[in-house]
């Protein structure tokens, strides 16, 4: 009997795949899938959406912090600080957790109701931040803290030592020399480029507070320089790539970390702060209004100010750091990159300028006018 019942595999299959069995199987499968999905969700990490410069997310990944807190970072890289504002406005509110704007943007973002204030009790490592950064007037609005400063630097000129030999460039105006025509590049950074042009080519006392005439002079200078340049790159990475491939040998404006980007591609470049001066920047961890993971975001802000994260920023990304405890732990080589002992000396070459006025006032051109005039440079 047994043989008869099982003599045909076809029979067995047919009898199993009856409509009733199929329905049972589907129901069991659905329940199983639902249960496994729920278990997977219970075990999965919380995804933190971050809008930042390329490489900044690495500072949050140092050590076992993310694993310990079941977090994972979903970064979106920017080409300019303006992109942060646009991404928040264009549907990012409620989904983006953390952004890393330059300090000048913080008052603008607070005015546009884009940022959550930071509960200082949730970021105890703020106590280690040097007062010069902790007390930056841009990051406090109406007595509330809106940003945790974590790294800083200046806009240097990068150059290829193999090309320059001992005659390294010392002035932004060196780029105007005929021998460098077609051998240097810009990054497409409106505020940075205009600020340096204002330092070099105008009589403005504060390079971010320009009259209409001074703004026009700065843009005219940029247009003249663009005529001699080889490249206006849309990102620091693209500019670094051009240096690595030998397309350009110097840059107008720059970022210290580009030295690492270029080194990663097998070429050695150096940076210098030209004698006319440049602008300094202070980048911050900010929490976006209606961020979905507020508690985790505070932990992350605290982590990026920890000694281990700050050391990584200072030693591997070659950027300035803000934590005194981490500065004390830096390697001598990394500590020598910035005048941590004497910030005034750094100020002689690089200035923390205020943000351009949000609206036209006292004869000064607003940030809107800066952007409009910059389009003249882009179109030239």
């Amino acid at each position, binding site marked *: 009997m047994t043989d008869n019942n099982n003599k045909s595999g076809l029979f067995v299959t047919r009898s199993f795949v009856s409509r009733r069995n199929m329905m049972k199987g589907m129901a069991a499968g659905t329940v199983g899938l639902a249960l496994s999905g729920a278990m997977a969700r219970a075990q999965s990490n919380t995804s933190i959406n971050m809008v930042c410069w390329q490489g900044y997310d690495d500072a949050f990944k140092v050590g076992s912090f993310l694993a310990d807190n079941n977090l994972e970072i979903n970064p979106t890289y920017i*080409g*300019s600080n*303006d*992109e942060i*504002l*646009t991404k928040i*406005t*264009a549907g990012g509110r409620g989904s983006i957790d953390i952004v890393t704007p330059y300090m000048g943007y913080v008052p603008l973002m607070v*005015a*546009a109701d*884009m940022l959550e204030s930071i509960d200082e009790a949730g970021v105890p490592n703020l106590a280690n931040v040097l007062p010069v950064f902790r007390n930056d007037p841009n990051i406090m609005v109406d007595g509330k803290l809106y940003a945790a400063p974590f790294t800083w630097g200046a806009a240097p000129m990068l150059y290829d030592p193999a090309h320059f030999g001992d005659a390294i460039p010392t002035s932004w105006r060196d780029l105007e020399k005929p021998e460098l025509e*077609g051998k240097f590049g*810009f990054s497409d950074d409106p505020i940075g480029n205009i600020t340096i042009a204002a330092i070099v080519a105008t009589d403005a006392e504060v390079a971010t507070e320009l009259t209409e005439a001074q703004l026009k002079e700065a843009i005219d200078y940029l247009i003249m320089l*663009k005529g001699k*340049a*080889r*490249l*206006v790159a*849309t990102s620091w990475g*693209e500019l670094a790539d051009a240096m690595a*491939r*030998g*397309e350009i040998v110097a840059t107008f404006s720059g970022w210290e970390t580009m030295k690492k980007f270029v080194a990663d591609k097998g070429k050695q470049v150096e940076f210098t702060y030209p004698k006319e001066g440049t602008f300094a920047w202070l980048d911050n961890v900010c929490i976006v209004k209606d961020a979905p993971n507020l508690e985790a975001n505070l932990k992350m802000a605290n982590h990026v100010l920890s000694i281990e994260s700050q050391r990584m920023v200072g030693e591997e990304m070659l950027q300035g750091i803000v934590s005194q405890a981490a500065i004390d732990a830096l390697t001598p080589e990394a500590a020598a990159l910035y005048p941590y002992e004497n910030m005034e000396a750094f100020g002689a070459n690089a200035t923390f300028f205020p943000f351009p006025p*949000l609206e036209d006032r006292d004869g000064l051109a607003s940030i809107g006018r800066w*952007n409009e005039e910059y*389009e*003249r440079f*882009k*179109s*030239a």
Partner: protein
Amino acid sequence: MNWKSRLLLAPAFGVFTLFFVAPVIYFFVLSFWRVRLYKLSPDFSWVNYAKALERYVPIYQLTFSVALAVALTCVMLGMLYAGFVRFKAGRWSVVLLFIPLMTLFGGYLVKIYAWKTILGINGILNGALLSTGLIDEPMTALFYSPLAVAITLVYFLLPFAILPIYASMRGIEDIELDAARDLGAGPLRRFSDIIVPRCRAGIVSAFIICFLLTVGDYVTPILVGGKISMIGNMITPQFGQKFDWPLGAAMSFVTLAISVGFVAAFSILISFWRPR
């Protein structure tokens, strides 16, 4: 058309309306609005169109010059290649037709990066010219220039020109060309009086595809254009960085209007091409 046919078409019509017509209408309305402190503000102002037409004239000139050069080059090369495949290649025609198709298998960015390695200052072309002694130092004009943008786009778009032209040529019977030859028409006369008029639809299609894709391209100028910007490079930041969507929308509609003008002009010109 009966109600069943209409019902079957409804999903396609719905998708087209939702994802194409509605966004176009939305951005057209938006092009008259203003932005105040990163917030869109309803308005009815022509100021964005005035800005688009005042500020970006040199960019429009460059964009449409490059697009015209690329589209015409693609059409001419496409005619030559498709003509060779259709009338001369014989049994190799399938293989020769497959070759340009193969280039479509690679990603768009891969092709651009490939040209970076070919045209760059330390690229393959400069290396070859230096090693043969034809030049003493690398040519910089090959890369980070409008020429580099045009070369890259011609390479990318040529298959899109070859295919519609070849499809048109398949409609030409060999006997028509044989008859013309028997009646004393030389190669140029056969090309002018038979091939071009019969391929008019394919030529116009090839031109439109290559022209519009070039006008709208903003990645190629970023990666190989150096310091030049095409109109796409000016429109993209209005949406991605500056949050000036109304200006970006106005610039897009101006670009669209000029493009339609070029396409219409080309279509009219080619329609005047008649056998002598």
